[in-house]
Every structure is written in C-alpha cells, then in structure tokens.
C-alpha cells in the first residue's frame, strides 16, 4: 500500500520536476519584461536536440552540453535582437504574439536543420533504478530535481545579490525609472532572453534521457511549464518549482487512484481551482494598480 503511494509520488516527482524546469524559464522573462515567452519550450527543444545530435556524432556529453547551451543562448539573443527589440514599443500582447510566431519558426527550422525523428541521450548516472521502500526511482529523475534546485538557488543569488540582477528586477518594476537611474534597459531584456534560453537548454539536456526529444518536444514542455508557472505565480521562481511539482504529483495520484483517463483533467481542475481563489497563483505578489 505504502510502496504504491511512494511509487505514485516518485512518478509525480519525475514529471513535476520536468514541468518545473520548463516553468522557470517563463518566470525569468516575465520578471524582466512582463512578456510570456511562448518560445520557451523551443529553447528546451533546441538544448535537447543539439546535445543529442552532437552526442550521436561522437562529441562527449559534457562538451556537447556546453556547446548546446551556447547555441541555445545565441538563438535566445537573436530572437530578442531581431524579433522582440524592433517591437519594443509595442503592446505586451503584441510581443507575446511575436513569441508564438517565433516558436513556430524555430520548430520549422529544427525540422530542416535536424530531422523529424525522436532522439535520446544516455542517462547521466546509468539506468539502474534506485529502490526506496519498495518503489523505484531512476537516477535521472534525481538529476532533474537537483538541477532545478541548483538553478533556483543560482537565480535567487543573481537577482538578490548582484548589481545586474537587481537592475533587471528594477526594470521589471518600473522601466522608465530604471532607465532614468542609468540602467541599460535594452541590455536587460537581452540578458533575460539569454538567461532563459540558458535555463531552457539546461532543462532540455537533463530531461532528454527521460522524455526523449524531437522538433516538437517543446510544445508539451512549454504548455506544462506554463501551467506550472501560472499555478505558482508568474514571475516567481519558487512558485514555478512548487507549481510544477504540484501538477506532476496531481497527475500521478489521479492516474493511480482515480483513472488514468482523467489525470489531465484533474491537473487542470486543480489549476483552475487555485487560480479562482488566488488569481496571482500560489506565490504571486498581489498586483497593485497604478492610479
């Protein structure tokens, strides 16, 4: 009985950590620009795909990962430079629509540059499941959780302890005031895209051994990551993690104790329910309207 519950929790932990990592990327860009970047899932896909392709070509995993992160960051910066920046005076909604267009473009590009097949990476620490209390967990799941934790700590440090991080936060609060204080707001936006591309790439690399990847992998990860970010409170890193885990565990428990046919519905009902009572998500700050 207990082993069963534990197994469901582990299943939820695995998917939840994946959703959380995806959700974190949304949080960063939202923080600095109030834009929801719907190409975030594509950053994850590019990270996973380019690593898988390089590893298949014989590049050692650590080198391939590093290069893949760089490639993805380059894509992130290019996206900001050529698609977002020219429209910087436009409405937030317009910019969000641009990111949707960018995501479709990046998926198409991935089909041409790479291929349409599924690709995988070897698990970082082998494929022997860990046995805990009669339930099993793959070492790769721990990698995903671990990376999510490291990322959230690093982000906290960056936003609270470094000058540039604080400048980014300041820009998100009041763009004009930040500019008047001498903060290069253009640079802030670019760095936030590079940063969330980095996050996406890292996420894509650690989840690929579990979920595999292909040019479309970003759609699902982006959607679930977005749900996680909204549930946790947009723009809040901790919220994205808690939100992701909550969605993952709710799905696993629902398929374990109710019916697997309703697991997606259960997750969405929970999200709706939470947002009904806490419109800003679990950890979201209450929005203050300017008068």
């Amino acid at each position, binding site marked *: 009985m207990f082993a*069963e519950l534990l*197994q*469901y929790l*582990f*299943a*939820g932990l*695995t*998917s939840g950590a*994946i959703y959380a990592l995806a959700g974190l990327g949304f949080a960063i860009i939202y923080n600095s620009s109030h834009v929801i970047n719907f190409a975030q899932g594509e950053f994850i896909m590019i990270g996973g795909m380019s690593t898988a392709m390089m590893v298949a070509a014989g590049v050692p995993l650590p080198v391939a990962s590093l290069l893949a992160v760089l490639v993805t960051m380059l894509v992130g910066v290019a996206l900001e430079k050529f698609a977002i920046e020219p429209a910087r005076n436009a409405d937030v909604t317009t910019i969000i629509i641009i990111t949707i267009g960018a995501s479709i473009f990046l998926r*198409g590009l991935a*089909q041409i540059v790479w291929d*349409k*097949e*599924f690709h*995988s990476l070897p698990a970082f620490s082998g*494929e022997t*499941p860990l046995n805990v209390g009669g339930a*099993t967990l*793959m070492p790769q799941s721990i990698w995903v959780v671990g990376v999510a934790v490291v990322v959230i700590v690093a982000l906290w440090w960056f936003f609270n302890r470094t000058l540039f991080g604080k400048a980014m936060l300041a820009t998100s609060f009041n763009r004009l005031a930040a500019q008047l204080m001498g903060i290069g707001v253009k640079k802030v936006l670019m760095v936030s895209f590079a940063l969330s591309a980095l996050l996406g790439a890292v996420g894509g690399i650690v*989840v690929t051994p*579990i*979920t*595999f990847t*292909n040019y*479309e*992998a970003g*759609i*699902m990860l982006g959607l679930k990551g977005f749900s996680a970010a909204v549930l946790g409170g947009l723009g809040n890193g901790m919220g994205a993690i808690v939100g992701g885990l909550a969605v993952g565990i709710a*799905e*696993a*428990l629902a*398929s*374990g104790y109710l019916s*697997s*046919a309703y697991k*997606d519905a259960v997750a969405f009902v929970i999200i709706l329910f939470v947002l009904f009572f806490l419109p800003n998500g679990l950890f979201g700050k209450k929005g203050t309207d300017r008068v």
Partner: protein
Amino acid sequence: MRSLAKWGVAACAVVAAGVFAGAAQAADTIKIGTFLSVTGPASFLGEPEKKTLEMYVERLNKDGGVKGRKVELVHYDDGGAPDKAATFAKRLIQNDNVDIIIGGTTTGTSMAAIKVVEPAGVPFISLAGGIDIVDPVKKWVFKTPHTDRMAAEKVFLDMKKRGLTKIAMISEDAGFGKSGHDQSLKVAGIYGIQIVADEVYSPKDPDVTAQLTKIKNAAGVQAVFNFGFGQGPAIVTKNYKQLGMSLPFYQSHGVASKDFIKLAGEASEGIRLPAAGLVVADQLAATDPQKPVVTAFKKEYEAAFKSDVSTFAGHAYDGLQIALAAILRAGSTDKEKVRSEIEKTSGYVGTGGLVSMSPEDHMGLSLSAFRMVEVRKGDWVLVD
C-alpha cells in the same frame, strides 16, 4: 505604348501556346496525385512515403514509363490536417485532373479525402492504417497497410498460443493508440482473451510508472499489451523495466522500426510485436514469396536515402505498384476501368504481404501478412 501592346500580344500568344502544349501533353502522361503529411506530427511517416513515390516514379520514367506514357506525380503536403487533405484532394481532382490518387498518410486525412473522392469518382489508394477506410467498403477507396485490428488479432493469437488469457492493456489515449485499443477490445473475446486492466496515457507524458504500478498490482495479469506510437511506447518500455516487471510484454506494429529499439535501449529486450515482412527482410525463409520483394525494396531504399527502410515507405511502394499494374491491365486511365482492375488485384506480392482484393475486401491482406517478432540483443528476431 504601341510597342508595349505588341509585346502584350506576343506574350499572350506564348502563354496560349504553352497552355495548349500543356493540354496536349496532359493527355499523354499518366497523372498520379498524392497528398501526404510530409510536415506536422505524422511527418516521419509522410516523408519516407513521399521520397518513395518520387524515387519510383522517376525510375519508371527513365525506363520509358507505362507503355510509353510518362508518369507525372502531383504532390501536396497536408501537414497532417484533415481539412487541408480534403482541400488538396479536391484540387487534385478539379485543377490537376489526376487519374488516380495515392496518399493519405494518416487515417484522419484519408477519411477527410474520402468525402471528396467518392462523389467525384476517382480511384484512391490510402496509405493509412485505420480500418474505417475500407470498412464498410467504399467503391473508389482502397488501402495498402495492415489494419490495427489485424495487429491486435495477431498479438492475441500469439498470447493464446502461449496460454496467456488474462492481460492488461496500456494505450495512448489519442489517434493510433486509441483506435488500436478500441479494435483490441472488439476482437479480444474471439481469442478468449480477457482484459483485466485497462490504462491510458497521453502521447507526450514523460512518465507512466503510475499506470504501470496499477497494472502490476492488478490481480491475475499474465501479459501486458501497449498500443501506441512515437516516443510513448519507448517511455512505457523504460518504465516497465524500471518497475522490474517481468510479465510477457507486447507492443503494436506502431513501433516496428529500429528507432524504437534505439530509444528504449536495453529495456526493449524480449518485447514481442507484430511487424510486416519488410522489418525482418533478411530473416525470411528463402522460400517465402515476400523475400525477393522486400529484400530488393530494402536495398534500393537504403541505398538511395542512406537511412533505414520504414514500413511506411513500403506502403507507398505497394500503393504505386498496385496502381500501375491496374492501369497497365486496364490499358487506359479510364477511371472506372482502373478502379475495377484495382479491385481485381490478386496475388500481388508487396512489402506489406500478399494482396488479393475483391469487391468485399479493398485491402486484400490476411493475418499471415504480419510476422511475430521479438527483440533480442537489440535486433528483431522472427519468432512466428
């Protein structure tokens, strides 16, 4: 100004000449229309299909065509969207005046095109698996691949032989997996199979251990059957091993490609599934009538495209061969004549199996077209 008008007249004349020349040429060429899902979620099926059609049409023309008539392939990419497929089918019939249509990568796009093709009266050979395409029989519609019902029957037959009667199913809750699941439920009784646990997952779920744990703890399960394609079955297979489950594990023909073994890795060891002869071309007995066909196709495909042959490419090859043979027998491209010749296809040995159609059967494959294969040491081994 005057010179401009002169040029205009000249241009018109040139265009008109071109149009008439085109019309004259069209009467000579055999026009094969095709709409495939070369992009979109089913692109890994549609792309090999398109490449195969192009390669064999080009080769045919190099060898002089059909009785001296060149063959022209008119292709549209429907991106996997049924509404687009219907539009392209209409365009193929009304604008391109094709003689026959081969295409429809997925059951969805094929069914959408049928609504256009049937009233227009153009022979149509679908490359999709769903049984709905030919059941009930539609006058102008044929198909080359096996159906999901046959796959389920083949699996249940094998289970029965091994004395496994109580099984658990875990299926994708959309498209291919859902249809396969429903067909499995329909035929299970015939083979004395009882489905004691029935779980589903979404095509892109990253983890299905929760569903498998439920199956593991269900009483009396003797075997597990997974119906799905894409990365889902590979994740199910990995999770199956993670949980240390050791019951006989069956997959559907949806994963009969080397990519599945590559993705699932060691966890795929011992899995059984029904597959077309093409998958185990080298292992077929020398006396097997399919042997020469599938080995030749495999060799040609892999030499031309430097990638593993896929059964989907085989479906396109079979469709083209059946169509060309029918046109040859009919001696013309008269649509009714060609249609009735396709229906009379008998004893055609294709990559999918032995095809013998009839007015009641517009697919013409029997259960023997499927071979039972098992994964051993990362490769398919023929077991039946």
